[in-house]
C-alpha cells in the first residue's frame, strides 16, 4: 500500500516538484469498495484540501481473463462469455461478437434476424442508459431517479426474458442469426413498451433537466474538448457530447442500421450536462429505431447458412459496433481451427476511463464521483 502511494507521488502530476506528503496534499484511496465507483474501480486521488491534483486508476479487481478464455473455447462456446463483459448491455456485446465471427466466415444473418437484433440491441441501449441515469443521479445525490429508471428498465428486461429466458446476460444471438423465433405477442410487447416509455423519459427530465442543483453540479464539470477526446480514443456519448458527430451506426453501418431513420444527438461543451442531454436524446432516438424496426420486421428464416461446426478460414478481422458506451470492437485472429487463435476486445469503458484524469484535474472530490458516473463505466468490461 505504502509502495503504491509512493509510486503515485512520483507520477507526473502538476505539483510533482513538491516533496512527498507536503502538508497541503492528501492522498486518499477511493475504492475498490466505495459506493460511487460503480463496482470495483479503485482511484487514488491526490488532493489539495478538496481540490483534485491528480488521479490514478487501479483496475483489474474484476479481471477474469475473458480474452484468454476465448482461445480455449470454440467460437460457439465463447458466445455467452461476451455477455459477462458489459453486463448492462449484454445484447450489444453479443451482437458485436456474432457479427465479427460472421464477417470472418463471410456469412450474413437473414433480414428477419437482423431486425430482431436491432430491436433487442436498441432496447438494450435504452436499458443501459436507464441504469446509467439512475446511478449517475444517485452519485450526485438524487436518490429518486434510480427507482424510476429501475421500474421502467424492468419492462425491457421482461421482454428479454420472454424472448430468450434470461434478463441480464441474455445470450440472445447466435453466429449466423438468432436461435429463437420471436414469441407470440413480441411486436405487441415492444410497441406497448414504446408507448409506456415515452412519457417516462419526460418524468426523468422533470426531476433533473432544469433542476437548479443538477445544473450547477453538471454544467462545466468534467469538460473534455473534442481534440482531447479524439486523442484519447474516447467514443460513444462522451465523444458526441464534445461535439463530434461520430456514431458507428451511421459511420460504418452494420446490422441493417442504414435502413433506419434516426439522428445522432451531439453536445457542444463536452461537460457532464451535455453528456446527460446526449444520452437522454439517444434514448428517444433508440425508441424511434425500435419503432421503425418493429413495424417493418420481415418474415423469413432467422438463421443463415452456417455449418454445425464453426471453422472460419485462416485470417483476421476487426469489427466494431456502437455499444451504449461507445465503440465496442472485436479483433479475431483465426488459424482455421474451431477456436480463435487470439481474440482481443476493444472495450469502450476501458478506453473512456482514460479520460477521467484530464476531466477531473482541478475539480473537487464531489466532482470525481460525478465524472466517474458520467463516463458510464462498467467494471466487468474495463477489466474483462
Amino acid at each position, binding site marked *: 500500500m505504502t509502495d503504491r502511494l509512493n509510486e503515485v507521488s512520483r507520477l507526473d502530476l502538476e505539483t510533482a516538484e513538491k516533496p512527498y506528503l507536503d502538508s497541503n496534499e492528501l492522498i486518499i484511496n477511493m475504492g475498490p469498495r466505495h459506493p460511487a465507483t460503480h463496482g470495483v474501480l479503485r482511484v487514488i486521488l491526490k488532493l489539495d484540501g478538496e481540490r483534485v491534483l491528480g488521479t490514478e486508476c487501479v483496475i483489474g479487481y474484476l479481471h477474469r481473463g475473458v480474452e484468454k478464455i476465448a482461445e480455449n473455447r470454440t467460437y460457439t462456446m465463447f458466445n455467452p462469455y461476451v455477455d459477462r463483459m458489459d453486463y448492462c448491455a449484454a445484447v450489444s456485446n453479443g451482437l458485436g461478437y456474432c457479427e465479427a465471427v460472421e464477417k470472418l466466415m463471410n456469412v450474413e444473418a437473414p433480414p428477419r434476424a437482423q431486425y430482431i437484433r436491432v430491436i433487442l440491441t436498441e432496447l438494450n441501449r435504452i436499458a443501459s442508459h436507464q441504469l446509467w441515469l439512475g446511478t449517475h443521479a444517485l452519485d450526485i*445525490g*438524487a436518490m*429518486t431517479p434510480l427507482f424510476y429508471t429501475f421500474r421502467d428498465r424492468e419492462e425491457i428486461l421482461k421482454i428479454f426474458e420472454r424472448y430468450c429466458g434470461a434478463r441480464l446476460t441474455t445470450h440472445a444471438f447466435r453466429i449466423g442469426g438468432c436461435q429463437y423465433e420471436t414469441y407470440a405477442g413480441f411486436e405487441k410487447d415492444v410497441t406497448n413498451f414504446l408507448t409506456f416509455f415515452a412519457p417516462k423519459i419526460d418524468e426523468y427530465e422533470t426531476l433533473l433537466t432544469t433542476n437548479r442543483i443538477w445544473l450547477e453540479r453538471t454544467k462545466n464539470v468534467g469538460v473534455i474538448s473534442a481534440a482531447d477526446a479524439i486523442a484519447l480514443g474516447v467514443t460513444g456519448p462522451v465523444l458526441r457530447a464534445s461535439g463530434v458527430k461520430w456514431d458507428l451506426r451511421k459511420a460504418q453501418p452494420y446490422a441493417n442500421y442504414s435502413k433506419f431513420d434516426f439522428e445522432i444527438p451531439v453536445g457542444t461543451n463536452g461537460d457532464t450536462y451535455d453528456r446527460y442531454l446526449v444520452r437522454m436524446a439517444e434514448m428517444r432516438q433508440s425508441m424511434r429505431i425500435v419503432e421503425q424496426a418493429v413495424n417493418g420486421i420481415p418474415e423469413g428464416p432467422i438463421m443463415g447458412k452456417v455449418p454445425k461446426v464453426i471453422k472460419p478460414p485462416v485470417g483476421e478481422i476487426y469489427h466494431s459496433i456502437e455499444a451504449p458506451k461507445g465503440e465496442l470492437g472485436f479483433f479475431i485472429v483465426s488459424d482455421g481451427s474451431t477456436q480463435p487463435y487470439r481474440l482481443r476486445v476493444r472495450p469502450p469503458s476501458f478506453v473512456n476511463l482514460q479520460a477521467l484524469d484530464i476531466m477531473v484535474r482541478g475539480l473537487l472530490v464531489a466532482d470525481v464521483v460525478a465524472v466517474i458516473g458520467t463516463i458510464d463505466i462498467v467494471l466487468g468490461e474495463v477489466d474483462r
Partner: protein
Amino acid sequence: MLNSFMSYLGSTVTPGEAGNQLWALIYVLIIFAGVSVAVICMNWIERKALAHFQIRLGPMRVGPHGLMQPIADALKLMLKEDIIPAEADQFVFWVAPLIGLLAAFTVYTVIPFGPSQAVSDMNIGILFMLGVSSLGVLGIVVAGWASNSHYPLIGALRSSAQMVSYEVAMGLTVVSAILMTSLNASGTGTLSMIGIVRAQQEQGYWFIFKFFPLGFIAFAIFAIAMVAETNRAPFDMAEAESELTAGFHTEYSGLRWSLFMLAEYAAMIAVSSIAVTLWLGGWVRPFPNLLHEPVWEFIFSLFPALTFGGLAAVAFIGAARMPADSFFKIQRIGLAVFAALLGFIALLLLVIAVAGRSADTSVAARFREGIDYVYWFVLKVAVFMYLFIWYRATWPRYRFDQLMKIGWKVMLPISLGVLVVTAIVGVLVK
C-alpha cells in the same frame, strides 16, 4: 414535596420561572422521552415517506406496515459489537457522539411548547438556543478528527465550514425577527422564546407575514440555513454517502452511530422548533384574532382529537385491507390494536376538550389549553419535518464550494438587507 407538586398545577408560568425544581425535572423527563419517541416516529415516517416518493413500500416486515422497524433497528444497533478503530483517539472517539447528543438535547430546555409548557423561560432564550445548537458541530469535528481516517476528516472539515458560514445568515434573520418583537408600545424587544411568541400574539401577525415580504424572505433564508445547519439533503455534504462513504461517522458503528443519528434528528426537530417559534407563531393556533368566539375556540380544541381519530381510521382501514391470508393474521390484529390505541387517545382528547371547554381556571381547562398549545406547536414542527423528507427525495446534493457560495454571496447579503430594511420600516411604522 407533594405540596410543591400540587402547587404548580394551574400555574401559568414555566416551572423554571416558578422556581419549582420538581416540575422542571418532570418537564425535562417528559421532553427527553417525547423527543426520543418523536425521533423513533420520524425514523419510521421518513423511511415510509421516502419509499413512497420512490415507488417502493419501505419497511413492511417487522410489525404491520413496518411499525416496529425502528424498535428492531434500535435493538440491532444496541446489540452490535462496539468497535473503536485501533488508530483512533479512543477517549475523543468515545466522547464525540455524546457532545452532539448533549448539544441537540440541551436546546429543548428553552423551546416553548406553550406559554407555560417549557422547562424554563430564559430572557436570552434565542441566543442560548443558537449558541448551544452550534455546539453540535463540535461533536462532528471531533468525531472526524478522532477517527484518524481520511473520509471522516474531510466530512468534518466540510461540516465545520458549512455550519460556520450558515450560522451567520441564520443569525441575521433571527435578529430581524427580534427587531419585529420591539414593535410594541414600550418599544423594547425580547430574546425570550416565550416573549417572541407573545409578541406575535399581541401584534396579531405571525412574523412570517410581518412587513410582507420582509418576514417571508427572512423566514425563507432561515428555512434554507436550517437545512444546512442540520446537514440534511441537499446540503448533506458532511455525510455525502456517494462521495465520502459516510462522512464523519464512517468509522462509527452500533450504539455510537445511533447516537449520531439520534442527535441529527433531535437537532432537526430543534431547528424546526426555532423556525416555528420565530416565524410561525409557536403554540398559537391559526386565526386567533379572526375566529376568536368561544365556539371557534371549541372547534379548534377538537383538532387534536380529530387528528388522532383520523390516524386511527387510517390504521383501521389498513387493517381491514390486509389480505385475508392467515399469514397476515397477527399483523392484522397488531394493526387493529394500534388503531384501537390511537382511537382511545382520540377519545381521551375529545373528553378533555369537552370537559375543559369553559375558559375558566379549573385544572381541566388548563389541561385542555396545554394540549392545544402542544398540538399546534407539534403540528407546525411536523410540517417542517415532512419538508426535510421531501427535500431529500427530490434534490441532488450541492457541491461544497457551491454551498459556500450560496451561503456567503447570496444568503448573507440578502439577510443583511432584510435586516436593514426591517429596521427602517420598523422605525417608520412607529
